[in-house]
């Protein structure tokens, strides 16, 4: 934990404290929003391969870098994961979409990095091990908003990967295909008459 954090967070998680941190969180996210505008594009690549639905190009690029560290399972493709996150976010509230964009800005923002971790390099320009250290700092932070911010990105990236069929062989997960085809074509299924008839068959 950085010295700044220890000043902001008391060792208690009382409700008042959490709410105060929530407000601090709002300010942090604003800082994040400005962060993406202040820094040049990363060298890391990670440009979108399809039109974006909820993120912008800069936020997408940071997300690709985050995804590369969060999901290291066999076959993980950070760009595909980031596109999955973008699609998932397109179903979320506009407020949530803008919070995630700001959060990614905060991850990238060197000023925030300096305040919390004394690092001046944007996230996308760090080495993999330094990126892991940055993630770790968010993950174990005493600030609720940093921990929940880490959790939001973690969950979005992981879910995006694991809903893809390509991740399933590793888990030996193979849901049936076409199970639903027959049911809906049965013209009677679900009607009270159908249930009654089935009950009779069962009872006999």
């Amino acid at each position, binding site marked *: 934990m950085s010295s700044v954090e220890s000043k902001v967070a008391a060792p208690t998680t009382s409700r008042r404290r959490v709410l105060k941190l929530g407000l601090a969180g709002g300010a942090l996210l604003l800082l994040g929003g400005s962060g993406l505008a202040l820094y040049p594009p990363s060298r890391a690549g990670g440009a979108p391969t399809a039109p974006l639905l909820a993120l912008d190009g800069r936020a997408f690029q940071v997300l690709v870098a985050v995804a590369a560290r969060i999901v*290291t399972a066999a076959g993980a493709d950070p760009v595909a994961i980031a596109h999955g996150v973008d699609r998932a976010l397109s179903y*979320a509230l506009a407020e949530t979409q803008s919070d995630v964009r700001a959060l990614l800005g905060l991850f990238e923002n060197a000023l925030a990095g300096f305040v919390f971790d004394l690092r001046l390099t944007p996230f996308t320009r760090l080495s993999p091990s330094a990126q*892991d250290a940055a993630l770790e700092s968010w993950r174990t932070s005493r600030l609720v908003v940093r921990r929940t911010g880490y959790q939001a990105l973690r969950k979005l990236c992981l879910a995006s990967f694991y809903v893809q069929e390509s991740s399933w062989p590793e888990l030996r997960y193979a849901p049936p295909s076409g199970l639903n085809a*027959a049911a*809906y074509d049965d013209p009677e299924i679900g009607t009270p008459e159908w249930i009654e008839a089935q009950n009779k068959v069962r009872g006999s």
Partner: protein
Amino acid sequence: MRSLKTIRAGAGVLDGSAQAADVTLDADICIIGTGAGGAVAASIFARSGKTVVLLEEGGYYTSADFTARERDTEPRLYQEGMTRTTKDAGISVLQGKAVGGTTVVNWTTSFRTPEDVVDHWHKKHAVGGFAYADLIPHYEAIERRLAIAKVPYDSLNANNRTLYDGCKKLGWEVDTLRRNVFGCLQSGFCHLGCPVNAKRSMLVTMIPDALDAGARLLFRARADKLERAGGAIARVRGTLLDAEGRSATGKSFTVTARRFIVSGGAINSPALLLRSGLDSGGLVGARTFLHPVIGSSALYDEPIEPQRGAPQSAASHHFAHRGDEMGFFLEAAPWYPGLASTAAPGYGSSHADFMRQVAHTATHIAIGIDGFHDDLPGGRVTLRSSGAPLLDYAITPKMWSAFRFAQKRLAEAQFASGARKVMTLHERPVVLEGKLDEAAIDAARWEIGCVPVFTAHQMGGCPMGDDPAVSVVRSSDLRHHTIENLHVIDGSVFPTSLGVNPQESIYGLSHLMASRIAASK
């Protein structure tokens, strides 16, 4: 009755996303929300000869869309594309959004409201409008229509059987569950919409019943505001949404009616009332309860394959009543890779290792019973600047303390049923090899963002009761205390949580109250 397919294609079903012009409708009764509360009420009103218009924000998906794939279904069938959380992001909120409401995605566990809970409401929340005995014939009617039946022990999958066996071994109360299914293939995909129409959700029962009796349905239609004329609601206005429900089409709708039934579910119903300027002196949105959930994973030598079989089929209420402490009940949680990956701890290689163990992993959950203690007052729904709801719900010290206790009991039950290793779902998991270590669980970081907490049971926010100083609707017919043509019929009317999975409580109460309203003038 006409087939489900014919009903779905009928003239009474309007797709809001396909409307080229603003829509205006009129009915005796307008029902906002088509889930457990709204669908049951609609079928009763339509069959009693009233003209009914049902409004639903979500899509009209059917088993044809239920592909057993999370990617196809979760963003479409859940509120906010399954990204809803509480204000401080401490709790993930799973809540449905579709024709049929949350019943389309629920896990089919069916309990009547416990009698002692109704007693508590009578004594502590001035709920005098019905006796427990009044509910019984309505539960029975629902149980017949939804084919609710107790499952035999032999049908339990290993995920549920391990919970059952562990509790039995420890001498704890445990039982197999009643489920609202018929012809269930045990495919395990309840959570993504039943692919074979075996789940007797509102989508395949009360909604088609209502439509077959002449009700009309406008889906992809979000009710924004109830508008008053004098002491009554004159109309509801709202926004039509595109086919994916992601944005407004630019078209709107207006429904005039003699009576309005708000059935948007907890969180959403209070939000609609708040947007309409009906806050009942601050009562609307307060006392929202969540049955907050924590989980425990356990590794067994035997194969568990938690993705197979009925997701929920055993429960223990042994710890439901804990005096001054928060009670909880134990159940099993199903496993889908996307959902499970968000609950599994950490990231990178440790996370990938955890996921690979799935074939031998069981996950059991403890479901907290909130609302029965002064220091478990639930949360409050407020409005975002866009008008969307935002739930501020504090996890209080009493709740954290109950979670710690529950985590230990979950581990005990898992070891008792043969688990080799038990893991909490903390970001830094507590890993117990072979035996319970209470001190290790106590030492874990019990804070927001360090341990996943989720809710699938939202209740309260528009409580019923006979004292307008503490309730929003009266308990004899769920009518608003001051607006005589406005009712709230859904899970938001409960004055506390329930201590059991809520769907049948909502069906039964809706059946009773809609029958009373239909019989009144």
